[in-house]
């Protein structure tokens, strides 16, 4: 093998080819993120003498031995919503937009009372007037409905990272030193082609400054939360955690090994993600990504992400789909951007004017929500493990654990605060088992009384 030359755009998309220096800048941007995160891992490992980062960049290291490509896959439908609301309500919310201000404390947000976003009393700085999709599995979708009938005309899915589009507008991204040449006109043309011919440049740019998860945006900057990417359509991912740099960060920090108070390695995927606070513990994606990486790290492997680094839809499962007019379900699915098994944009719609998406039945049930289709979509990233058993790193103590409601343990809290009355979860896996079990036992006793008739 040899060193990788450059990091390519996701799915080898060719938009940047017409912008001088853009592909090179993209490479530097991805490289910068790798370097930063390798540095973060090095910092974490400082207390462990002799330990070295197991996350690497293929541009600077070529480990000996066979490379094992490890696709990490997950379902596109947001498990956070499933856990919180159950499927019926989750389908409604997954097709909806939530105010950005609700993001950091989303467990306080009640979609039935949208005026109260549950934002931290001190304010999160995120505005009420811009929106995000609570579909935080690195796949988002927009449902186009007929205004009169409410029937679904088409559903458009994307896994394109926001960084790719922000870069297309040029300049530096939040926290990055890389200056993209950019071509706003190209971006506008793409918006018109992919989303709506009526898109104007002014629609896409920030008018008044506001704080976004992608940094402090000032007038003239590209606004990833613009209406054609939220309320009126979709071009790319824009929910705060759905970012390429988040993917790189998670893959990197998940290589760090942990153990409990007794020195037993932390191996439970739920406890690992909750205890390290490195992603959303209630998602399909983050626990799977983190745990898959950590397992390989425990095997002493060196780990990286395959080029082109990206977030992709792997496939859509059409089993049980019934479409009208003697057509094949395959005719209703178009891959618009990306390539086979590295899908960036996918549109589900009728190939003829005669029918619409509401005519599709899945398992005998008519499609009433975009989320029913999302349930059929598998999302992925591709990791690489190399030089198995070559690294023997030490283990840090698992710093924390999540919290759950003992009377109704649906979801794990921790990352963004926790409701009163929650108790520690995974106590047996963390460093705090001795201190934190009393309250839990009280709750168990309360439950025991309830169940014992």
């Amino acid at each position, binding site marked *: 093998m040899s060193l990788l030359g450059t990091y390519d755009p996701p799915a080898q998309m060719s938009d940047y080819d017409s912008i001088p220096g853009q592909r090179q800048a993209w490479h530097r941007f991805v490289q910068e993120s790798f370097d930063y995160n390798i540095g973060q891992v090095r910092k974490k490992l400082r207390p462990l003498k002799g330990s070295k980062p197991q996350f690497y960049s293929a541009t600077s290291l070529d480990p000996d031995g066979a490379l*094992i490509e*490890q*696709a*990490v*896959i*997950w*379902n596109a439908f947001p498990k956070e919503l499933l*856990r919180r609301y159950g499927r*019926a309500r989750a389908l409604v919310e997954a097709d909806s937009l939530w105010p950005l201000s609700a993001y950091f404390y989303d467990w306080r947000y009640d979609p039935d009372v949208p005026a109260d976003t549950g934002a931290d009393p001190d304010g999160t700085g995120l505005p009420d007037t811009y929106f995000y999709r609570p579909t935080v599995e690195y796949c988002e979708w927009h449902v186009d409905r007929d205004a009169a009938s409410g029937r679904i005309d088409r559903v458009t899915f994307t896994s394109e990272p926001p960084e790719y589009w922000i870069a297309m507008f040029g300049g530096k991204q939040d926290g990055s030193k890389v200056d993209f040449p950019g071509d706003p006109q190209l971006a506008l043309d793409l918006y018109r082609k992919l989303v709506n011919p009526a898109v104007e440049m002014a629609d896409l740019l920030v008018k008044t400054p506001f704080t976004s998860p992608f940094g402090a945006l000032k007038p003239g900057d590209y606004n990833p939360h613009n209406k054609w990417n939220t309320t009126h359509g979709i071009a790319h991912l824009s929910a705060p955690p759905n970012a390429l740099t988040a993917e790189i960060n998670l893959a990197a920090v998940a290589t760090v090994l942990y153990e409990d*108070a007794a020195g037993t390695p932390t*191996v*439970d*995927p*739920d406890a*690992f993600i909750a205890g390290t606070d490195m992603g959303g*513990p*209630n*998602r*399909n994606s983050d*626990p*799977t990504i983190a*745990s*898959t990486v950590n*397992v*390989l790290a*425990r*095997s002493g492997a060196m780990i990286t992400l395959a080029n082109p680094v990206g977030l992709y839809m*792997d*496939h859509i*499962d*059409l*089993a*049980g789909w019934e479409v009208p007019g003697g057509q094949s379900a395959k005719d209703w699915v178009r891959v618009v951007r990306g390539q086979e098994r590295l899908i960036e944009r996918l549109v589900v719609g009728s190939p003829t004017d005669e029918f619409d998406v509401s005519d599709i039945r899945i*398992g*005998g049930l008519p499609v009433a929500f975009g989320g029913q289709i999302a349930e059929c979509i*598998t999302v*992925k990233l591709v990791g690489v*493990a190399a030089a198995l058993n070559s690294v023997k790193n030490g283990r840090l103590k698992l710093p924390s654990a*999540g919290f*759950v409601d003992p009377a109704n*343990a*649906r*979801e*794990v809290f921790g990352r963004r605060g926790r409701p009163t009355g929650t*108790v520690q*979860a995974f106590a*047996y896996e963390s460093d705090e*088992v*001795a201190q934190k*079990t*009393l309250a*839990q*036992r009280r709750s*168990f*006793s309360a*439950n*025991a009384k309830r*169940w*014992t*008739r």
Partner: protein
Amino acid sequence: MTTKPKRPWPVEPVLDMADIQGIAVPGFFKPHQVLLGLLYQRTPERLEALLGFLRDLTPQVSSAAVTLRDRRDFRSGARKTRTKRFPLIAIGFSFHGLFDLTPGADAIPSPAFKNGLARRSALLGDPTDPKSPGHPNNWRVGGPTTELDILIIVAGDTKAAAAACAAKLEKALKAIKVRVVREVGGVRTDVPGEKGHEHFGFDDGVSQPGIRGRASNDPRDFITPRHVDRSEFPAAAMFGYAGQDLVWPGEFVIGYPQTGPDPLIPGPELAATPSWTRNGSFLVYRRLRQDVGLFWRTMRAQAKRLSRLPGFEGLYDVELAAKLVGRWPSGAPLSRTPTKDIDKLGHDKLSNNHFRFDSDTPRLKLVDGKDSFELAKADPIGAACPLASHIRKVNTRDAPSDTGARSSTYERRILRVGVPFGPSAKDRYAKSRPGKPDRGLLFLGIQSSIEEQFEFLQARWMNDDSRPKAPSGHDMIVGQNSPTADGTRRCVLFGAGLAQAEVEAADQFVTPTGGGYFFVPSISALTTVIAPSSPRAAK
């Protein structure tokens, strides 16, 4: 000063053992079964006669308490008591069978149950070509025009006992003009060394989940016996037998806590809608025909082909089949013995289920014996036990999946209570016409959600080429070909030195030939809602 940590042992709910049917808790695990599929007529007279039959039957339906006592008797060796016992009986209703007796069934929030198996067949990957033998139009039972209304399961310790009990019921049903479709199944005993094995020759039902919960207020009266010493925490709180996951009872019975993020903290209670569905379950019945000759000829041909590839030298048919199952014919897991079958390990319940996939398996202190076999090593990429093997496709154990972390595997577990049917193959490689002789599995699975458990496992994991964990491939044993891009199932295997090779099968070893989705009501729902003992008020 250090204090010994207090351990958060879960307090497990007491289940309503007198009300839950025994097929759901603890499950019928008797060696012989007769299934009586009922199709009744909707005239007032016939309906009234049916209700009379149901009223007479209800006292004979085995409760969880009766079934658990029967099992404990069996395990304690009280065989005399056991043989004197009446066979166990269970009853379930399809949506149409239930709705025409109890219109309130319309409020049951299960689209799968209400649509029925035949209409959900394509979702399960069954053939969509009406000419195919596996298409619902060609099913022996439960097709679009032969959908069962009611399923009665009679389970006995002997074939004769089960048959005699079923014959009595059948006679009573014929007297009231109810059409009966009978299926007879039982543990295979006609091939030495294969008792309890399904027709392909593999021990079946080795890794049943354990139902978490108690049969009484006694804090140690666990429905699933515990075999791991309490000094082993959290393993002793996680398992019945070592490796047998204890799953919160709401995954099997309505009205109890389900899985939460932490396996030791109960998740939300599964609400009973309508209220009389409390203590009820859903039963999936699939009549699966197995083509033994095709399976073994394919194994032989594929093993021969692979054995010529570097890293796969010497591969033989049984070894290949074991890789695709994840266990050797004896039941011994590949994770613990990757290169050869160990009969003793396969038969040892203290050991045969104790293995992890993603991390080294620790040795545990057990209360009633020792596990002295080689322990499983971490196998995240499937070098020992392939990611596409049947056992990794349906139970991800400690590994994450496309639906998140470990808790997501508990949410998918089902209790399998079926048995094989048909004669054993004399020559496992012999060619025969499909269905001649007819043999296979009467698959019966208990769960609280057909959509999230049985259908999820079949459609989303077994039939898919990458889920639950990539890079894997299809479930080559039970997976169906229809959902694949070119009608061929494939999976990836690792050989020596991490050499990789693909196995493929264009023909299906398993063909669906019938079945149905059923609601298994509580005994109180039978007596007060479905077939009340006092005559109903005139409408």
